[in-house]
Every structure is written in C-alpha cells, then in structure tokens.
C-alpha cells in the first residue's frame, strides 16, 4: 500500500471505512482542542488520522498522518511473540491468531511504530486480545482492496504489489521533484514495510519514527535466540556468586540488627 501524503486532505473516510468494514464500535470522545479523534489507536480504532500543524519559516502547514499497522516485511511483533500468535502472510498482511495469544504484550513493546494495542475491555483472564489493522485480509483474499483504500476520495491510498508501488512512488518523485521528499518511507525502514509513504516534508516531522534499514526483527531474533542460554548462564553466575559469599562468610558471627545494638 502506497500512501501519498501530499494528496491527503484529512477527510478521514479511511478511518471511518475501517470501522465500518471491521465492525468496530465508536469510542466516547471529547474535543481536546484538536481534530485528531479518538486520541490514539486502540482495540477499537485500528486506523487513525493524526492532524498536525507545522509552521516552518512563518508558513503554516497542515498535515494528516495516517497511522495504522505498517505490515513489516520482517515484523518485530511476530518475532517477539512467544507463542507465534502473529505471523506474516505471503500476501503481505501481518495477521494475529486470537486463540494462541497469552496476553504477554511483548508485541506492543517490540513494534517500532507503536501499533498493536491490547483490548483492555477483555483483560488478561477473560480472553487476552491484541488488536491492530489486519490489512483487510478478508477483502484482499477476495480480490478487493482494503476498506481504507476503497474509501479514499483523493487517491491518496494506492493498493497493489510492493515492487510496483515502489516504482510508482519513485516515478512520482521523479516527475514532481519539488513536491516530494526524495525518499519512500518504508522501502528500507525496519527492513522494509508493506505500507509505504510519500511526503512533502521530512517523515520524522510528519511523525514517523527514524529507523535504520536493519529489520528490528534481526535484533529481536538475536535477543530471543540467546535469551535462554543467557538466562541459564546468568543464573549460574549468580548462584556461584552466592556460594562464594557464603564461603567467605563462614564462621563469622551474624551481624546484630540495629534494634539489638540499641
């Protein structure tokens, strides 16, 4: 999916279409002095437009960042999941299996974009549920485009194969170099994502995290691989230390407590 932020007018048809297709209830909200509402992604809000007013050299700009799962090529959430509840599909979507989840929420910490959310209404005991955009996998598997792409009136959201979208994005940048930052966000970030962005201002200003091109999963997989040996080794070391201390203290009288000293 290619999101051309230079075309977005913040109409939020995508945000509402997401709720409509996925049958997500509305949240009770307040106006907090901004158009952005609900305030953040949640178990019932999988896609959110964040309104941003940015002034540069006295010129006001009004930007609309569409925030939802990036469907990484190497998803950190999936690799952080202890029970394999999250997995990357061949078609692109990173999907989640309700029945496997144990509610550890490692995925939430692992995701560099802060996307997965926990359904606190269900809680840990009832049924732990992680919620996020599912790329409308049910629509895509039936030959339709995701609900957000279908609803967008301004042709901001383009759905298709990743390579073609990268080619299209690069063509747009070539054609109107003044209009775009010379880079497609998500082409390399975090090892590449299925959701790609074009923008007229630096992506960090728009609110997307600065990431290098190594997949976050490389790190998390490395960590996961050495977690058990590390834990075992650390345990052994601590045990050894404890034994050493006990050995050095042998024969010494027990230190009186302060109460006894008084």
């Amino acid at each position, binding site marked *: 999916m290619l999101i051309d932020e*230079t*075309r*977005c*007018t*913040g*109409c*939020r*048809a995508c*945000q*509402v279409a997401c*709720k*409509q297709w996925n049958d997500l*209830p*509305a*949240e*009770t*909200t*307040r*106006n*907090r*002095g*901004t*158009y952005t*509402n*609900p305030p953040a992604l949640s178990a019932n809000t999988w896609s959110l437009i964040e309104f941003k*007013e940015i*002034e540069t050299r006295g010129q*006001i*700009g*009004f*930007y*609309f960042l569409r925030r939802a799962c990036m469907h990484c090529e190497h998803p950190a959430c999936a690799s952080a999941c202890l029970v394999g509840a999250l997995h990357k599909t061949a078609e692109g979507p990173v999907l989640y299996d309700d029945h496997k989840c144990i509610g550890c929420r490692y995925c939430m910490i692992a995701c560099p974009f802060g996307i997965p959310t926990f359904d606190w209404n269900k809680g840990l005991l009832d049924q732990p549920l992680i919620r996020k955009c599912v790329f409308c996998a049910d629509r895509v598997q039936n030959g339709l485009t995701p609900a957000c792409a279908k609803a967008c*009136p*301004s*042709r*901001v959201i383009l759905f298709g194969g990743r390579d073609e979208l990268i080619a299209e994005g690069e063509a*747009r940048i070539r054609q*109107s170099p003044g209009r775009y930052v010379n880079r497609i966000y998500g082409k390399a970030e975090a090892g590449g994502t299925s959701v790609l962005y074009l923008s007229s201002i630096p992506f960090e200003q728009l609110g997307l995290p600065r990431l290098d091109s190594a997949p976050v999963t490389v790190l998390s997989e490395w960590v996961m691989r050495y977690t058990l040996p590390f834990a075992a080794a650390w345990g052994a070391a601590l045990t050894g230390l404890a034994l050493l201390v006990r050995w050095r203290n042998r024969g010494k009288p027990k230190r009186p407590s302060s109460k006894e000293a008084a």
Partner: protein
Amino acid sequence: MAGLGPTFGRGAMTNDWIDLKNSDVIFVFGANPASNHPASFSWITVARAHGAKLVVVDPAYTRSAAVADVYAPIRPGTNIAFLGGLINYALQNQLYPSEYLKAYTNALTLINPAYQGPAELDGLFAGFNAETKAYAGATWQYQIEKIQVKVKDAAGNAITKEVSVPKQAAALDEPNTVFSILKRHYARYTPALVERVCGTPQEKFLEVARTFCATGAPDQSGTILYAMGQTQHTVGTQNVRAMAILQLILGNIGIPGGGVNALRGESNVQGSTDMALLFGDLPGYLGAPTDRHADLQTYAAKFDATSYWVNGPRFVVNLLKAWYGDAAKKENNYAYDYLPKTSGNYSWIPLFQAMRAGKIKGLFCMGMNPAVSGPNARMERLALANLDWLVVMDLFETETASFWKAPGVDPQTIQTEVFALPALDAMEKEGSIVTSGRRIQWRPRVAAGPGDAKSDIWILNRLANALKAVYAHSTDPKDRPILDLNWVYGDDPDPDVWLVAREINGYALDDVKDATGKVLLEKGALLPAFATIASAANFDAIACGNWLYAGYFAPADDGRGIWRPAARRRGQKDPGDLGLFPYWGYTWPANRHILYNRASARPDGAPWSENKKLIWWDAATKKWTGYDVPDFVATKAPDAKADPAGAGLATQAGTDAFIMKADGKGWLFAPTGLADGPLPEHYEPLESPVQNALSGCQCNPVVKVWNTDKDKAIGDHIGVCEQYPVICTTFRLGEHWQAGAMSRTLPWLAEIQPELFVLLGPDLARARGIANGDQVKVRSARGEIQAVAMISARLKALIVDGKPVHLVRIPWHWGWQGLATGACVNDLSPHVGDGNTMIPEYKAFLVDVRKA
C-alpha cells in the same frame, strides 16, 4: 445561482465534477471542497498529477489549502474587492483574449451615455431611490438602434417592421462600451486596495493573480470552485457575478477545465432548484407568475423573444397540461388562473418574520431543520412557537421537531402542535438525483426503511388525495385547482415513481405534428427532447412537468445499442477522454455537459487549441461536431448572420454562444436581472469592524434590514465593532452534515467530531487568556453560545486598513439532539440576507469571545 443566471443565462454549474481533471488552474474561493465536497478531490488530484495548480483563497488555512500550490488569506466579506482586483489585473495587463471578448461577451455593446457608477457616485449606481432602497436601472441599458426589416404579416403580405437591436462599437476601448465601463469601474481595485480591504498581503494577491490570470491563454483553462463562502453574504449574488465576469474576461467559459462551478452542498440540491424549490420559480426556471401577470398573455410576454426563451410560453402550457390535464384547455388559457400569483418575497427570512408576527399559522418542514440552520435561530425558534401546527418530515427527531423542549424552554409555554412523520432516506427509496454538474441519475431502492418510515412521495400522495377528498363535493370555483389537479400516480400500495418521472419527462396527449403535418411524436409516447416542443405546431398536445428534463426518462442508447430510460443509462464510453461520459445518466439541458460550449471554438468554428478542443464546425457536413452536444443550433454556421426579422434563435448569429440571453452574449455588464447594480461593487457586511475603503456607501444599499423585536432580549439586533470586535464565520466540517440530524446520530461520526468548537488564532487566544481545549463563550448581538476552544495558527489575524482584525470560525452542525450535542451556532448569526436572493449572511458577522 442568481449571479450566474444574469451573466450566462442559466443558474447552474457550467461544467462537471469530472471535468476538473481538464483544468490547468483550479481556483477554490469561498469553498472548502476537501471538507465539504471531498469527492471533488478525486479529480483535483488527477489534475494536479498532470501539473495543474491549486489556488485557495480563504480566511483560514483549510484542509483544501493544505494541498494547495498557492494560498492567500482574505477577510470574510471582501470577496468582491479581491475578485475586482483580479479583474483589474487581467485588464491592466491585457491578459484577456480579445477575440473571445468581442465575439462572445457584451464587451463591445454600448451603454446609455448617462450611465454613472460607484466611481462617480460614491458607491452607488445611477438611479438609486433612498426611500424605497431600490434602483431604477433606466441608465444601465444598452443603446438601441432601430432598424427597418421586411417581414410577412399573418396574411402573407410583405410589410416593413421596425425592430430594435443593441448598438455595438467597433473597438473595445470606445467610450461607453461595456468594456470601457468595466475597465473604469475596476481601475479602483488596485493590489494596494485589495491589501487594504481584504487584509491579503499584496505579494500573496499578486501570486494568485499571476497564477490564475495565466489561464487567459488559449491553450490554458482555469476553473473557479465556490460554495457558501460566496453566496452567504449580503452581496452574495454579486460575489458570484464577479467570478463569472472574471471567467468571461479570461475566456474560461465553455471550455473543458473552465467554468464557474457552484459546488452544490447536497446531492440533489440542483434537482430541487430545477424543480422550483424556490418560491420565485416554476419548474425549469420559468419564473413564478406574480400579481403583475394577471393572465397568460401578460405572463407569456415576459419571456425574451430573441433567445431560446422564445419557447417559454410553450413550456408553460406544457406544464399546465401536466398539472391540470384535461382541465387545461385553450379556451380557459390552459387553467393559468389556477396558478397562485406571488405578491412579495417568500424566502426564508421573510417567512420566519411572518411566523414571528403571527401571520403564518402552519408549517410543513420536509428534511429541513430551521431550529439549527436558520439565521438568528433563537428568534426563529420563537417564530415556530407562534405556529398552530408544525409538521416535521425527517429521518430523526430533529431540533425542529423538538424545539418545544429545547434546553431552557418550558414546554408548557408552547401551544404549537407538532407532528413528526418518519421519512425514508435516499437509499431507501427509488428516484432520481441530480448532481451539481446537472447529471440526472436514477437510483434504485437498496435498503428497506425502518418501522413506519415512508417515502416523501408516499406522504405527499396521501396528503394530496386527502385534500381532494375534503374538497370533493365543493362547487366553489376557488377549489377547482385542487379538484382539477391531475394527480394520477397510483397508490397500490405506494405511488409509482415511474409515473412521476413520466410526467416530468413529458409525453404526448395526442399525435404531435409539425407545421407540415408530419407526426413528430405519437400519442402516448415519451417526449425525447424539448426541441420537439419548439418545433411542434400543436405544442399543447404535450404535457411536460419540466421542459429542462424533457428526454431524461425517454428511451436512449447507452452507447452499446441497449435502450433504456436515459437517466438509468450506465454507458461508460467517453469520447475525447474528457470525462463527459455522455451515455451515463442524462445531463440537462439536452445532454449538454459543458454549457455555452460554442465558446470552446474560435469565432470561425475551429478549436482555440488542440488540447482544449470540445466541439468544432465541420464544413464538409455543415454541422458542428465533437465530443459534447452543442449548446446551440448544431447546424448554424459560424458565420451565420443574425436575422433581426426572425424570432428566437434566428435573431442570434453564428457566434452567439449564450442562447438563453436576449443578445446571445455573456453579460460582463448586466443591464437587467439584478437588484443591486449592473456590476459587482464592494460593500462591507452588515456588521463589519471597518469603514468601506472604496466609498461612503457602507453596506449593500438595497439590503432589507428588519427591526423585529428590537426592544426585546431576542430580536433583530445589529452588533457594533466596539462591543463585538471579532469577525465570525460559520462553516461546515467533513464529518457532519448540515444541521446534523443525519450525522450527529451516527456513532462513528460523533466519535471523530464529538463537540462544538470555536477555531481561533493564537494572537486572539493570548489576548483573551484562552488555552487550547478551554471552554469559551462566544457572544453576538443576538445571543451567546459555549464551545471548546481550538487554537490554531491556521487562522491568523489580518491587517485591515492598518489595524489588526481577529477572526473566529465556528462549525454550525450542532444542536441538542443526537449523540454529539452542542449549542446552536446560528443563535449568533444575523437575520439579514443578500440583496437579490435573501440568502442569510452567515459568513461575516461580529462577535466577541471570552473564557467561560
């Protein structure tokens, strides 16, 4: 719309939504399509991808401005100063195509030498009567030349007849030409004056001027998109006129990607206007008969004899035949006497004044929510309380249906009996919808309605039949209009909407023949086009509910050889790849998609440029050809001469592109049709923080100001700048819909825009000690509301005439019903309307704001 009619001949969007993709510069002025017409951005995006520029002029940096190439701020209520500046810029820098101006506009026409305008008369036009606040436009008229022509009288004898034709100059700059008057009038609108009046920095204004006026080149087209930001002013009609003049000067009318495009805010508002929703009209813009039109002959004489309106008297007869059937006979002037005659202004504001005064006792409110949407809404709710009965047909219990239990109102004090009739949504009934671009599309019913909800046609059918039953035994002649009403739409169990469509389309009551006796249309057949009415000898054998829609329901080819009612076609062929899609639905008039398209070609009939070609003269076949249906006589050669002895379009030449105008020209200068002057002149809004910098005439001089309940807490109060120094504009959001009944009841929309808010700039917030998200009170001379403060650098103070002027903007969708509730913002707005149309001045009035 009232601004487009006098200029071009028809009060409608000249082009279409898809046509925006053909534009080189899209000028959004007085609209915010990103919020209010988001689908338009589908085509604006395509145009921009091809390199088109988007220019936005708006008091706030809106969501449309967010993607614009050029943005300029403007003070609300100063659009004519800005547009006058653009007109002046185009004229001074000779950016106009003079060949276009000479051929297609009245630039060369000579005006009465006694004409004087605001430049000479300190803001007024000649002929103003200060007592009646009205103009006698005698000196605004064309100079007339009397010529002798030979015609045949009824008996076939050649006789000499004297006819009057407008005098034309040879060159644009001759004295008293429209062009020289225009140039003189707008010479005062310099970039410095624009800055002084509008608060737009000069360099920003010039950037807009340079960008947009470049579309005067023959291979460029520019379009202006506007909405309520132009119309909801005391000078609303003249705002629209100013845009129309600018577009004529730049040669942008009649071509792909050009036009003055009124973005209609509701999906069928064009259809309702076409069907005479407004009090001053009959279907097809025939004009409602007034008490000056005592009989059919007098009424028929009001139509121009030298334009296509020469057929107006025929269309009226067809309408009367549709409405009164056999009771409309030649002997009784086709039952013309049955038509009510208007004797005053029955627009919104006078109606509510009459209710307030107790003169109107009952009100039918169909899909309208005046308790929220009306100006000075608190006073209008008091007017509702004066009614004996009120019927509200709507999808939900609106604020109007529940005005008697509004916050702070004691229901016991209100005697009005309120009936709520649950109605069906557009998706729950079959029928046609007319887009802003005049395309009529038939839609099926796709969902069943809830509970007892009924379609409008079901309710009206019951009502009409009940009325007929009540009067069934009456012998009183005054009851004949009800008894003779040709009301036959079936009721088994629902009325048949196809029968309604048939009547609107028109059908033959008998064999329709031309002068030679050839049968044009067999008895019972559907009318294929209004041309049949024009060429019929026995035109009174046709019943037609709206001549403009003639043919919209008649069988037509969908481009694949499949014939079906034209409005139900879904053919996808697009000759010329311009997005006209002539086989999809039916576009009035006569499936012409770009109005006045004669002007898309040079006077000699060749396109102005290859990339903007639309229709052109084919000398071989002696016919106009191309992608669109010609908006004039398709066989009239470019060099055809006018025949002053003829009638109707015969009096117009091969270069006359505006067939609904008496002289076939686009009117830069409008001798008739406007109450407040032949040219747009800047006046301040009724409530303004500054003096008019252009003249001593502060407000539009013809505007009617009421004084109802001036001595009471709720009344027609006018605020002054000392008490109310901040300019307020009401506006609409993308997330809510008009008065809110259809959106504030939807959880997903209530979630994204939950509460009423006031947009204000950081300077004003700092001055008043307001922080983002605070509750604030906004007060005008009419009332006070509370809302959340949204502080935004998108709305900046403007420097007007040397001093800073602060602005606030408030979306007006809220009320006390539904899921997202809030104060009625129109409790603040003034009960005053435009000088021509009476559209209320919602876009510029004075308030003050403070922390709650």
